[in-house]
């Protein structure tokens, strides 16, 4: 169906269903319960990040998972996408359509240029070239060097680019929304459904992002299964041999690079559409590193793995970092005092300001015990429950662990 084989189609349906019901699935606990206060992740801002970073890493996986080329500067495309989108808000209006289109186009242009140059090298030399380009773009944006050269504002430096009341916004008419909208449908409005102690928020912006992620996911399945994807995998397994057969691999590589750059640009545009401010730190090397880590953590070269990796990292960043000692004391309030204090002392280093420690330990644990990323955990669990599938949904995308 839809040009997918039945296994892929089933996977696709699962992803669609997860996206549609995310506001419910991610809010498993009643709002007022202490578990709900700590662990519920079904609020719009975080769900948006789940799908947007999922989309970003899906795109990254087309490059890294299929060709094995490790780009260490992918966040730069995310950044230019965001800047392009905010400029559209500043110049035209808050309608997200031109913003998203331009963000994809601009990121595409940047990736053509950078890809053309960086793809002249392979391996770590390629990684460092992409890193160098991204770091240059970061510095330029952070200190607004382009703006300084021309005496104007281009990226607005460290403060970040945002929309001011005195911006031109030539398409704004009286009464048009003053927040990002899709032809009047405001991104930040939502419908809240209260059932008992539960509260589920269905927000326009989240669903728009989710639609883009589903489209991006669909496209990535098609690419993985296409002759083009086959070619990319062939390049990964032995590029020299491909060249000997008289095939010019460069156009294929460049196409993969640009596609993945455009995914990043789209993700950047969506980030800006959800929250119309963008700063240079979105392009810093740690942001690029985070993309790489998300992909490896989830399982490189698998279809769903990257989305999973993005979800886990964003969850840790937003949920674990907010747990503080007084919340811990609440959890363990039922225990005798000495035990309560002991538990709080034991857990304290891993939450709140210590969430980086949890992150680092998680990376190490996953790499050591699950070389295939979190997807492998899924497989192991599936095997454990005796549902031995002939070939796993997720794993089917990859023939081997990616390098």
């Amino acid at each position, binding site marked *: 169906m839809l040009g997918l084989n039945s296994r892929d189609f089933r996977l696709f349906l699962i992803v669609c269903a997860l996206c549609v019901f995310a506001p419910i699935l991610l809010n498993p606990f009643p709002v007022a319960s202490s578990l709900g206060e700590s662990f519920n992740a079904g609020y719009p801002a975080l769900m948006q990040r789940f799908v947007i970073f999922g989309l970003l890493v899906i795109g990254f996986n087309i490059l890294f998972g299929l060709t094995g080329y490790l780009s260490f500067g992918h966040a730069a495309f995310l950044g230019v996408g965001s800047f392009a989108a905010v400029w559209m808000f500043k110049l035209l209006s808050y309608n997200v359509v031109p913003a998203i289109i331009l963000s994809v186009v601009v990121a595409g242009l940047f990736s053509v240029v950078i890809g053309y140059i960086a793809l002249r090298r392979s391996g770590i030399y390629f990684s460092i070239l992409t890193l160098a380009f991204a770091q240059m773009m970061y510095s330029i944006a952070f200190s607004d060097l382009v703006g300084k050269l021309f005496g104007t504002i281009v990226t607005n430096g460290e403060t970040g680019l945002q929309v001011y009341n005195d911006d031109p916004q030539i398409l704004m008419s009286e009464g048009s929304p003053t927040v990002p909208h899709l032809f009047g449908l405001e991104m930040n409005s939502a419908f809240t459904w209260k059932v008992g102690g539960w509260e589920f928020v269905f927000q326009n912006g989240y669903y728009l992002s989710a639609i883009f992620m589903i489209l991006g996911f669909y496209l990535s399945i098609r690419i993985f299964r296409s002759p083009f994807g086959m070619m990319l995998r062939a390049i990964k397994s032995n590029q020299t041999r491909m060249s000997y057969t008289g095939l010019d691999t460069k156009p294929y590589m460049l196409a993969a690079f640009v596609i993945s750059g455009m995914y990043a640009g789209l993700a950047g545009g969506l980030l800006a559409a959800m929250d119309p401010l963008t700063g240079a730190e979105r392009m810093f090397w740690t942001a690029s590193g985070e993309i790489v880590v998300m992909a490896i953590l989830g399982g490189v070269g698998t279809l769903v793995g990257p989305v999973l990796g993005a979800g886990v990292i964003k969850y840790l960043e937003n949920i674990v970092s907010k747990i503080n000692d007084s919340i811990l004391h609440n959890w363990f309030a039922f225990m005798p005092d000495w035990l309560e204090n002991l538990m709080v002392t034991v857990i304290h280093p891993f939450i709140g300001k*210590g969430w980086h420690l949890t992150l680092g330990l998680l990376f190490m644990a996953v790499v050591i015990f699950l070389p295939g990323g979190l997807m492998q955990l899924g497989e192991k669990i599936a095997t454990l429950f005796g549902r031995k599938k002939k070939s796993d949904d997720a794993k089917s995308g990859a023939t081997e662990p990616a390098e």
Partner: protein
Amino acid sequence: MDALILQLLNGMDKGAAYALIALGLTLIFGTLGVVNFAHGALFMIGAFCAVTMQRILSLSSTVIDETQKDFLGNPLKIEVPYVQSWFGDVAGAAIQDWSVPLSILLVIPVMLFVGWAMERGLIKHFYKRPHADQILVTFGLAIVIGEIIKAFYGANPIQTPSPAALTGSVDLGVGLGFEANTIIYSVWRIVYFFFAAFIIAAVFAFLQFTTFGMVVRAGMADRETVGMLGIDIDKRFTVMFGIAACVAGLAGMMYAPILSPHYNLGMDFLVLSFVVVVVGGMGSLPGAVLAGFVLGIVQSLSSMNEVKAIIPGIDQIIIYLVAIIILLTRPRGLMGRKGVMEE
């Protein structure tokens, strides 16, 4: 002219630091084939060894002085360092003053141990794994090390002064025929430069002139053959990892007076050290040293006001610009070998 010479001195000094870090990274990569993202963390551990030494030397006994009050109006506690009560005020203070150079006593055992523990406990299992896995696991380790340091020392940078005799600056220009007070340069940075040069020379001499070094070099060139010759190359590689960790730690220790150590120091140097290594050519020790100095000098020259007046902010991007140009003109960096890390 004097400005140029000063920037060249800065470049040599900066380059020495870059070269030293890149050297350790290349040792690990060249011998073990492991991409070690925790190398910056090793540098940081070295710097914190200096902090620890300073703390150890200022361990104090507390005397309560009833005549003075602290900020809450309670009697003031006066702390007398043990070294001062043991060695007398003057000698004790002198020992405290020289805490950074003295911490070499701490750095070498600590770094050898950390290197050994890292290699045996973790890295060993990753020789056969893809580079992506190596990156993730060492990156995770770097975060964990940073967090542990933060738990003990806080997030604030910690002042670790160089000995009083080596602070301040010295006039280098007079001997060269310049006017007095035009070419004055930091004493500690000159010390750092010679220290780095010494370590680099020692590492090269070790690899070049000892049997151990010869085996390791052979192992770098062709590990399997050396293994087949019946040489326990694994053990030697563990030692090399320890040595590389030591080099990083010593670089960090001596850098502590220049850059007050803080828990994120490792991450700050991580990207830069990789750029240096790759520009030098993966797996090439002379390349790493050369690239360190080239990038250090280029960066210093680009920070000159005359240059910045023409292109604002060039000093922020110059390293990456130069890296791109070098990698495009020389496919494997300055001195890289074919086929290393190109897949």
